[in-house]
């Protein structure tokens, strides 16, 4: 049901029956290693290309989520997935393996919450009983496509971010145990004219702020409603900017509540510059870490705002600025 200007409230409260997070070795050495269902020791996964490995990450995340849900694959009506590759090949190829009717979505790194919002809408409206939503990214394939070859010795500035190698998936159902998806706010494309692809956090921060404000306005809620408000992958630079912009707009989020997935996933000593990024970042942290905390009872209500930079390597070379988007999904545990 439409609430306010750009939000949905899910009256039937679709449940996240199961979720899974799969990560690579670097993520396994990170802060949230215990929240991953599978940690692969090798970024190649026995494949001969990074792109194929990324697909396997997505497949593993989906298979794991389906097994954990206890629902037969045939009973899942739709599969929604997104990634960062050209023509979202990882998602489409994973869909080929899964054999579930499929929507490919692209919202760059916001695909994770875009998928979850749409999946919940489908379940809420009765268009499906069970939907699986997934998103994934691979550090090396992303570097290869968006920046330089992985072995290239270009020095990265401190504003750069580290794309997460991993994937997350969630099975959303019309009934069942688990955290409930209660609402979503769909973001607008915001472009503040920044052009530096090594500073995505700063480019995405205004989009996150816009969606956060829209969410609280549409639902007429206060930030105190949530236990955690987490942005997807703003990193250190973007997160600081977002805090400042929110304060300027008169919305003070306490720092112990306002987190960023990109700042949570890795350890401080890991050389990730400003923090983690990619579809896999918000997907693994939400579907792994946050949902685990909710099941343990440490969190009751969370708002995840996945941020995405909608540029391509070509648009950047053609001197276009970086348009950004953010989608927010609220997940609540009912006790």
């Amino acid at each position, binding site marked *: 049901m439409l609430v306010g200007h750009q939000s949905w409230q899910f009256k039937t409260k679709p449940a996240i029956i199961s979720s899974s997070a799969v990560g690579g070795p670097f993520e396994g050495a990170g802060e949230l290693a215990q929240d991953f269902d599978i940690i692969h020791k090798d970024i190649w996964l026995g494949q001969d290309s990074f792109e194929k490995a990324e697909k396997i990450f997505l497949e593993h995340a989906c298979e794991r989520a389906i097994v954990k849900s206890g629902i037969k694959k045939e009973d899942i009506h739709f599969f929604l997935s997104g990634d960062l590759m050209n023509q979202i090949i990882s998602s489409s190829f994973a869909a080929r393996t899964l054999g579930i009717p499929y929507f490919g979505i692209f919202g760059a790194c916001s695909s994770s919450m875009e998928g979850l919002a749409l999946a919940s809408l489908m379940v809420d409206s009765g268009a499906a009983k069970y939907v699986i939503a997934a998103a994934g990214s691979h550090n090396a394939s992303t570097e290869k496509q968006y920046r330089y070859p992985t072995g290239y*010795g270009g020095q990265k500035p401190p504003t750069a971010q580290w794309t997460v190698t991993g994937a997350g998936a969630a099975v959303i159902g019309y009934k069942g145990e688990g955290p409930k998806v209660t609402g979503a706010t769909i973001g607008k494309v915001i472009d503040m004219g920044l052009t530096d692809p090594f500073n995505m956090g700063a480019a995405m921060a205004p989009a996150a702020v816009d969606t956060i404000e829209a969410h609280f306005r549409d639902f007429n809620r206060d930030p105190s409603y949530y236990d955690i408000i987490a942005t997807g992958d703003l990193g250190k630079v973007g997160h600081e900017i977002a805090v400042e912009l929110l304060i300027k707009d008169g919305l003070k989020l306490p720092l112990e509540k306002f987190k960023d997935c990109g700042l949570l996933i890795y350890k401080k000593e890991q050389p990730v510059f400003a923090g983690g990024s990619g579809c896999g970042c918000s997907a693994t942290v939400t579907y792994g870490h946050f949902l685990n905390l909710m099941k343990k009872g440490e969190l009751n209500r969370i708002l995840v705002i996945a941020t995405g930079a909608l540029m391509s390597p070509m648009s950047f070379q053609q001197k276009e600025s970086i348009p950004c988007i953010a989608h927010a999904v609220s997940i609540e545990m009912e006790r």
Partner: protein
Amino acid sequence: MKIRIICNNIVYGGRKKNIRIEGVKMSNKKTRELTPIQIKYKDIAKGKEPKRPVVSNCIRAFLVGGIICTLGQGLQWMFINYFNFTEKTASSPTSAVLIILSVLLTGFGIYDHIAQWAGAGTAIPVTGFANSIASAAIEHKSEGYVLGVGGNMFKLAGSVIVFGAFSAFVVAVIKITIKWIGGY
């Protein structure tokens, strides 16, 4: 700061806010006009950007670049004294050895880690050029030898070769012209 949009008189947090539609004109750099809000935001973003450690980068570049050049000097000395090369001819095997070392380090995935620390120190010497070719060749092997390795090998180094050759041509033309006029 208002980066905000939508409709008038929305109640938010008990207060009324007037929010205007802010269209952003998108086009290329020449014609792009940043709105005042975008300009203001650029300043904010600039202020939050961690500074590049320029001084320590320069010191590191000096050290690593110097070490590579010293190594090259040592190799040249070795080729002159033990392999009967002259000072002029020794430069070829010297570069070849440095290139092989650079390619090996790239292949083992070590070069980019050194380069992150060393910056221009590893980028400027011939090792950086070798690394740009080797890394692209290795990366695109998955697309096959012809279209992958062959087609992408000079992805990064290609422009160096193109503009290197072109500027050599321009300099040669200038030199010939000066000579023709009656200069040196």
